[in-house]
């Protein structure tokens, strides 16, 4: 029969499709990311989950975001790892593959202090809530913030519980019960007990009267007893401490079979080392560039597998997290420099800025080189970014004239917005040579000066590469912005020809 003769191949093809779809639903890319992008980053940073069968459940560890809500830098975002947007898409890839994932975070969302950091912490926690984390701990950077800001960000919202869990950190005191001490979740038929702890050495760095931190081992004892009674298949300790302290706690509480630690190298190891008590140690690296997935399997010969996952461009962008970033940038824009508490600081030289256009009057050749370089459009890159970043001091500090790049603060007389100081837009001459207002005023004849005074002002702005000291000074100046985070491939001798003048 014709119908029969067609049906057989159709069924074979259908079966093939079922299997192919099953194979394609490996969580190895973000939704909608092109094959070429996936292939590029697979080759660059390695494949993920290549030989994994479907696990019963996967614990997804993140931590030590260190304020890197998104990756940033002159080498292009696509060449950097990390950010909440990619993380969200990575977690969604599990759902698309039909794998049950339980995200947990070690803590350490921020490192700095001040209004911008408060706004950033709030946005990050909003993102964490959106990603449905099961447990999040506190890092010492988080606990530098005012308790009222922490509570506002972390506290339960209506019926939605806080994602935060801590055995030994109590915002406004442990008995205020803003956050629970532990949590038990069920996933893939497994019962998983989760708790977090802040190490004693890290706790000693906190100078915040409104936060109670109990010594880690003392606080863990009653929590461990409760978890032991809960009949968990796995018990997980997220320990914000250096590896030595984490290992000591793991030895003291051997019931935890997975223990995550802070304080390792930038890049986590490919495999989870086993601790003497049998627990697996999870290291996460820094700046949220990696996640580590730990899968639980029915296979008795290999019940646990792990995968280090670089959060690179293969995960794409999640629109809800892009919206969150846009809201964060909008918040910074609304607060403005005054609202962010950024009172200008004195430049070490005590001098003021003139703007790059003033240099053109006498230094035409050098100015032309600058004008044709990316430095001359540095602010435009922030204005044109989506969402735009030109209200973000952490970005502005390397894209305008007259800011302290590593302090993210303006100098007196430095850029204060396009409305007030358009002549100080972009990465201009004075960021390397020093503030030139006095020099230009004297050269123009606006101010009277002796010949010696004029020569002194000229000499102060000379940056010579002809001596080792001069070159070192110039290189150090470049490194203020071309640092490891933002320009990891920076090499002065390689980059200099592009702006040589």
């Amino acid at each position: 029969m014709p119908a029969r003769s067609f049906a057989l191949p159709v069924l074979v093809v259908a079966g093939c499709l079922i299997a192919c779809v099953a194979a394609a639903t490996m969580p190895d890319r973000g939704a909608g990311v092109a094959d070429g992008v996936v292939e590029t980053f697979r080759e660059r940073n390695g494949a993920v989950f290549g030989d994994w069968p479907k696990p019963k459940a996967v614990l997804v560890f993140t931590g030590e975001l260190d304020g890197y809500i998104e990756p940033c830098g002159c080498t292009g975002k696509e060449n950097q790892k990390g950010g909440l947007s990619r993380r969200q898409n990575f977690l969604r890839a599990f759902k698309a593959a039909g794998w049950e994932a339980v995200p947990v975070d070690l803590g350490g969302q921020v490192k700095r202090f001040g209004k911008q950091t408060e706004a950033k912490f709030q946005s990050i926690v909003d993102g964490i809530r959106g990603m449905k984390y099961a447990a999040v701990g506190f890092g010492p950077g988080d606990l530098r913030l005012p308790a009222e800001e922490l509570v506002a960000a972390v506290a339960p919202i209506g019926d939605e519980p806080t994602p935060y869990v801590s055995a030994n950190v109590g915002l406004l005191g442990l008995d205020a019960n803003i956050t629970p001490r532990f949590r038990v979740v069920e996933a893939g038929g497994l019962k998983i007990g989760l708790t977090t702890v802040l190490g004693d050495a890290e706790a000693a760095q906190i100078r915040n009267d409104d936060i109670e931190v109990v010594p880690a081992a003392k606080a863990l004892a009653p929590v461990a007893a409760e978890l032991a009674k809960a009949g968990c298949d796995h018990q997980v300790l997220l320990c914000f401490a250096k590896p030595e302290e984490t290992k000591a706690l793991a030895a003291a509480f051997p019931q935890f079979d997975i223990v995550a630690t802070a304080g390792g190298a930038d890049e986590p190891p490919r495999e989870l080392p086993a601790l003497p008590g049998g627990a697996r140690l999870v290291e996460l690296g820094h700046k949220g560039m990696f996640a580590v997935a730990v899968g639980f399997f029915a296979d008795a010969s290999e019940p646990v597998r792990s995968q280090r996952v670089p959060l690179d461009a293969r995960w794409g962008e999640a629109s809800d997290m892009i919206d969150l970033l846009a809201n964060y940038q909008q918040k910074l824009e609304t607060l403005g420099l005054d609202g962010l508490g950024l009172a200008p600081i004195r430049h070490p030289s005590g001098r003021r800025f003139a703007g790059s256009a003033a240099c053109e009057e006498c230094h035409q050749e050098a100015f032309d080189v600058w004008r044709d370089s990316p430095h001359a459009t540095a602010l435009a890159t922030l204005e044109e970014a989506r969402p735009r970043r030109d209200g973000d001091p952490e970005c502005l500090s390397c894209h305008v004239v007259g800011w302290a790049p590593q302090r993210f603060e303006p100098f007196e007389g430095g850029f204060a917005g396009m409305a007030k100081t358009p002549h100080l837009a972009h990465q201009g001459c004075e960021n390397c040579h020093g503030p030139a207002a006095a020099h230009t005023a004297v050269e123009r004849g606006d101010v009277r000066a002796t010949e010696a005074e004029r020569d002194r002002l000229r000499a102060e702005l000379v940056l010579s590469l002809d001596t080792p000291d001069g070159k070192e000074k110039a290189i150090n100046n470049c490194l203020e912005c071309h640092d490891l985070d933002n320009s990891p491939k920076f090499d002065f001798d390689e980059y200099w020809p592009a702006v040589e003048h």
Partner: protein
Amino acid sequence: MAWQGPRAWLVTVAALAAGSMVGVGGAALRATLTPWQIGDLAPLVGDVPTDAPRAEVPETRYEFGTIGTGAGGSHRFAIRNTGGGPLTLSRGHSSCTCTVSDFEGAEEGSAEATKVVPAGETALVTVTWKGKPPGGPFRQQVTVLTDDPRRPEIALVVEGTVVPTWRAVPESIALANLSASGGQQTSATIYTYGPESPMVKAVTIDHPQAAEFFSLATAPLSAEEIAAETGATGGFRIEVAIRPGLPLGRLRQTISATFAMPEDVTAEVPLEGNVGGDLVLAGPGWDSSRQALVLGTVSGKSGLRTRIFLTAKGPHRDLIRPTVEETVPQSLQVTVGPGSPVGTGGAVRIPLEIVIPPGSRGANHICSEQGPAGRIVLATGHPDSPTLSIPVCVAIGP
């Protein structure tokens, strides 16, 4: 219909199974053919020809111990071909701050920097690294690709610790809620890692006009304190006493400590904080930017129960015994709990239980033109701030 019955089902299941096997097989084939799909130690499924190369690496991890910032090193990893045919090696991805040298004796002009290792011979791969500031644990990995079907990639890892010249703990001091009337003591520790013990020459604060509020002193660390910091050989503590009277608002200073080791080194420790009043509110619904308790829209039928906290600081903290003087709307009930010390004892936390009982009448105090803010007014017992009025944004619906 001929296409019915147990036989038809059997054929259906068999066809689906066959198709599935083809699909799975295809997926497995893809995984086998793409080196990146396979982990470092993933075995090849199936037989390996006897003339295939075999890469053996006695050591894939090298621990270099500790090095100073700016210092570097290198290590040679050996890859031996114990198979029956020539082994081809090529460079894979390496971490950005770590470099892998060309294979010794690599083919001239080869764009891929490949090396063919005859059977029975060994290739050497040199990995170099440099300790960059600020120091800390260091791990870098380079990947070598091979045509050994059992081991398509080899990860070579170098790790250790980069030791800085000095380190401040904490890196910066943050005093989140500093009471203007209370003052505070705080400290930072400078650890040094050189052969010489540090000799402190000067400790200063950057804004001379603020100096009247700060007293700075240094104290040497004990041998136990130094021993507790990995790699440290010396150090001292900067003790900071902050006097009452700092102006309200953001505090930003930098403490600079100059010490000889024997060259002069200046360590900078930022000191930041918020100088505020003695009474601070916090808790679910407290919006510090609006300075209001935002309860939103509450069902009058089911009501609401929540809790916020009043934290008292400064020299009068133990005098604070709030009592409720007024609430708007009147259905808002506030109960003041007992105070208890929190943190290091420099603050007293007082819970405020806030209840809108079920069955409360409707009211609009949502903090808009139509609904002006409600309030909770407390008598505090503080000699300088005897009354505290807390704006409340709430609408009680049906």
